[in-house]
């Protein structure tokens, strides 16, 4: 039988996660397995004849491709000779230019770069990532999928993702045959949301390429690399087929990146005893060797495998840094959910979030978890406001922006209607009104019972059979009155002729400017350099929709104005020993009418008076005009009270009982947690005050403490309320009697 403390700890969500004992044989080791080879490079007459302890006759396909294509032999001698720690320091040092550390990395074998980066501590990884990522301006990628491949919902959600600032949208399918329909629906939705949003549809390699060639998607990412030959071939590819695939995309002007991630080989039982980080170093070297402009890594589907071993989360970030050091675009994981714990998943992402990356998430689930056909993401639609708040907290650009409800509502409707009209125009399918209305309003596909699963399947079949291209979609949009969106699709097609977005780490701004390693190179060189949000962007980051000012609070209070509390005249000292005064602060019933608990001040006064009456006391309301301090308010009222007992009350609802002979900071009872005080508790406070007046010692009421972040919820309001209270204070004005009107509803 476990003790209560451990029963309680066991029940926490983090204990749903799996944690593995390090086991090098199974590849369950983040860094430095005893089986990882020592770095080596032997070059004879310009030909690599040995790499990382293996001679060329024993090269597997990965070694072979990296050795033949991936290394800059002109710097290899220097790169391989440099001390690991010395290189790690160059990587972190802001005074050493990015070009220098990137240049050295190009001559390093996988084992060499892996071993050097193993030395970086978390804070050093943050600094290194800030300095070495390719693009100066950070960005973010969204997943937009749903369980039904509902084209209307996909379009509405793509428009929503674009409105929130995502510059790449990745979709996929639960039903493979639906893919072309999803690609078109998401492309239309993205075009409704913003110009320049890149769209991909992740499916099997050949089908994905085919869709790219038809112009149905504007980038590709699902081109997987693995760190051992066995697993690579199990994935039905070789480095040569992947190299060819990479060129095939470029030949049609389509951006692409490859995908890899530590732990993938261990998960598939083929790690060959090597560490996750070393195997990933092989993947990243190969990515560079085949000429991919970028890599999506950081565990990805196996992030939780890395997360299960010591140092695993650090290795995920180090993987991303390795991509940056190979001078490639880094799409830094934070996609597959790696923990049930909100604390752990935040901890895993946060260093990358503050460092900034080409794409902080390689798939922020902008839709609901259950609708994410990649599986739940590390960050999902329920976290969008958290992300926006985190950006604001740290003054960091995590790629997202606040979207106003009315704008999102308008965009969702336009996106869903555009898809409906285009599908009708192209003969792809019909959608009835209830389906459309549900999709516009839906928070997820469970809110769209009208969706029919055959519609996307049949639409996709027609798209493939009739060879519908993005030009046809643009024509349809234009014909149906969506000329703005048609133009945006044409601009995306034009981008693939111009070719500038084939360069490393390219995204488009809303003005269709390409931001990439070439046009927007990262120039971080210490404090005061590198990316900093523009004034306009900073304002966007800061102005989250939940922020409130004193003026907002005044308006909110004025809406609940109540005239039932009226002034009687100057307050005199009472003689009745049954009398208990209720000292209220200066703004009560004048500028403030509602307390933090949502009870009006009149409600509170009613309860207090009723409580007093229950115990035979007589209440008198006195406004104390010269202080905002509750102790002083209570004491002033007590000095006017016939019994010497008074209740003090601030407009925010904080209340106490005091006696005329107590010091200002003392009290008999205090309700300090105003937001959680109930009517019953205020009544009890009246009852207890009356008992004190009779000379009794009542049992104090228990303050309603809770586990909620009451302070986080109310402190900003308190600052505004106190400011309003202070504006009502008049030190020259003596206390005044107030009366509650009798007839009130």
């Amino acid at each position, binding site marked *: 039988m476990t003790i209560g403390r451990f029963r309680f700890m066991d029940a926490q969500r983090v204990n749903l996660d799996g944690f593995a004992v390090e086991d090098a044989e199974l590849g369950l080791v983040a860094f430095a397995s005893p089986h990882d080879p020592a770095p080596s490079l032997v070059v004879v007459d310009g030909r690599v004849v040995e790499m990382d302890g293996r001679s060329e006759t024993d090269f597997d396909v990965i070694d072979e491709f990296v050795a033949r294509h991936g290394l800059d032999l002109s710097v290899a001698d220097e790169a391989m000779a440099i001390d690991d720690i010395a290189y790690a320091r160059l990587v972190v040092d802001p005074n050493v230019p990015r070009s220098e550390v990137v240049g050295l990395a190009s001559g390093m074998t996988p084992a060499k770069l892996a071993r050097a980066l193993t030395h970086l501590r978390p804070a050093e990884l943050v600094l290194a990532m800030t300095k070495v990522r390719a693009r100066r301006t950070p960005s973010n990628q969204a997943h937009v999928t749903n369980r039904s491949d509902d084209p209307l919902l996909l379009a509405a959600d793509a428009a929503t993702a674009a409105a929130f600032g995502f510059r790449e949208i990745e979709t996929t399918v639960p039903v493979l045959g639906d893919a072309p329909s999803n690609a078109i629906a998401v492309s239309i939705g993205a075009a409704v949301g913003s110009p320049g949003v890149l769209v991909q549809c992740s499916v099997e390699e050949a089908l994905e390429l085919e869709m790219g060639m038809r112009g149905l998607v504007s980038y590709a990412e699902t081109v997987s690399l693995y760190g051992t030959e066995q697993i690579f071939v199990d994935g039905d590819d*070789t480095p040569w087929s992947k190299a060819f695939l990479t060129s095939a995309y470029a030949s049609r*002007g389509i951006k692409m990146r490859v995908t890899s991630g530590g732990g993938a080989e261990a998960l598939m039982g083929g790690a060959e005893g090597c560490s996750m980080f070393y195997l990933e170093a092989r993947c990243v070297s190969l990515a560079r060797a085949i000429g991919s402009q970028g890599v999506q890594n950081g565990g990805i589907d196996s992030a939780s495998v890395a997360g299960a071993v010591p140092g695993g989360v650090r290795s995920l970030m180090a993987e991303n840094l390795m991509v940056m050091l190979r001078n490639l675009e880094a799409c830094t994981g934070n996609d597959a959910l790696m923990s049930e714990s909100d604390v752990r998943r935040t901890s895993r992402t946060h260093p990358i979030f503050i460092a900034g990356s080409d794409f902080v998430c390689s798939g922020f689930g902008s839709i609901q978890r259950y609708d994410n056909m990649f599986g739940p993401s590390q960050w999902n639609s329920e976290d969008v406001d958290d992300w926006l708040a985190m950006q604001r907290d740290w003054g960091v650009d995590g790629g997202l922006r606040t979207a106003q409800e009315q704008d999102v509502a308008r965009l969702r409707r336009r996106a869903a209607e555009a898809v409906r009209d285009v599908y009708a125009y192209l003969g792809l399918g019909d959608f009835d009104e209830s389906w459309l209305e549900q999709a516009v309003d839906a928070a997820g596909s469970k809110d769209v019972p009208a969706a029919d699963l055959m519609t996307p399947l049949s639409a996709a079949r027609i798209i493939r059979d009739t060879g519908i291209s993005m*030009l046809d979609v643009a024509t349809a949009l234009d014909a149906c009155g969506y000329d703005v969106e048609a133009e945006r699709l044409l601009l995306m097609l034009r981008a693939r002729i111009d070719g500038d977005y084939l360069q490393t780490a390219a995204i488009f701004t809303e003005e269709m400017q390409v931001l990439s390693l070439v046009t927007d190179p990262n120039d971080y060189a210490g404090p005061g350099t590198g990316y900093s949000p523009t004034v306009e962007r900073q304002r966007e980051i800061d102005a989250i929709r939940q922020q409130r000012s004193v003026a907002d609070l005044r308006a909110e209070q004025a809406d609940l104005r109540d005239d039932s509390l009226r002034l009687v005249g100057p307050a005199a000292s009472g003689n009745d020993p049954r009398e208990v005064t209720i000292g209220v602060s200066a703004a009560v019933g004048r500028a403030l009418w509602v307390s933090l608990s949502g009870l009006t001040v009149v409600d509170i006064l009613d309860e207090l008076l009723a409580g007093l009456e229950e115990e035979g006391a007589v209440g008198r309301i006195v406004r104390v005009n010269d202080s905002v301090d509750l102790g002083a308010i209570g004491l002033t009222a007590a000095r006017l009270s016939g019994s010497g007992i008074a209740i003090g009350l601030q407009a925010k609802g904080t209340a106490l009982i005091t006696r005329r002979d107590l010091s200002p900071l003392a009290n008999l009872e205090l309700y300090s947690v105003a937001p959680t005080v109930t009517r019953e508790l205020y009544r009890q406070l009246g009852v207890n005050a009356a008992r004190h007046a009779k000379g009794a010692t009542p049992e104090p009421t228990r303050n309603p403490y809770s586990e909620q972040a009451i302070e986080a919820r109310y402190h900003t309001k308190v600052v505004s309320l106190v400011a309003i209270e202070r504006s009502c204070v008049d030190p020259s004005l003596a206390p005044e009697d107030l009366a509650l009107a009798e007839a009130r509803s």
Partner: protein
Amino acid sequence: MTRARSGNDSADLTLDALRRGGLVADDVRIHPDTLEHQATVAEAHSNPQLAANLRRAAELTSLPDEEVLAIYEALRPRRSTRGELDALAESLESRGLTINAALLREAAAVYSRRGMLR
């Protein structure tokens, strides 16, 4: 200004042109010269491998989609015999796709050594 594979200026890719029905698939296909230009940009930005990829791609612009897909399929593990890969390389070479031909020949040799031929 950039020319599409069709020879038309990319700036001509407009709604007006679309409405006139004057846009064809080659108006939205990249021109090999553009890829060569991008390759030189990649080289100037310390990525010769990206440059090499873009040059392979420049050659592939001349192939129809189906053939590109077919070559990709042929390069997947255990899809082709040594002879088939060599013949494919020969065919590409004869049409001026020399870089891709070299890639296929290299693949054929490595596949042979690593047991990845059909």
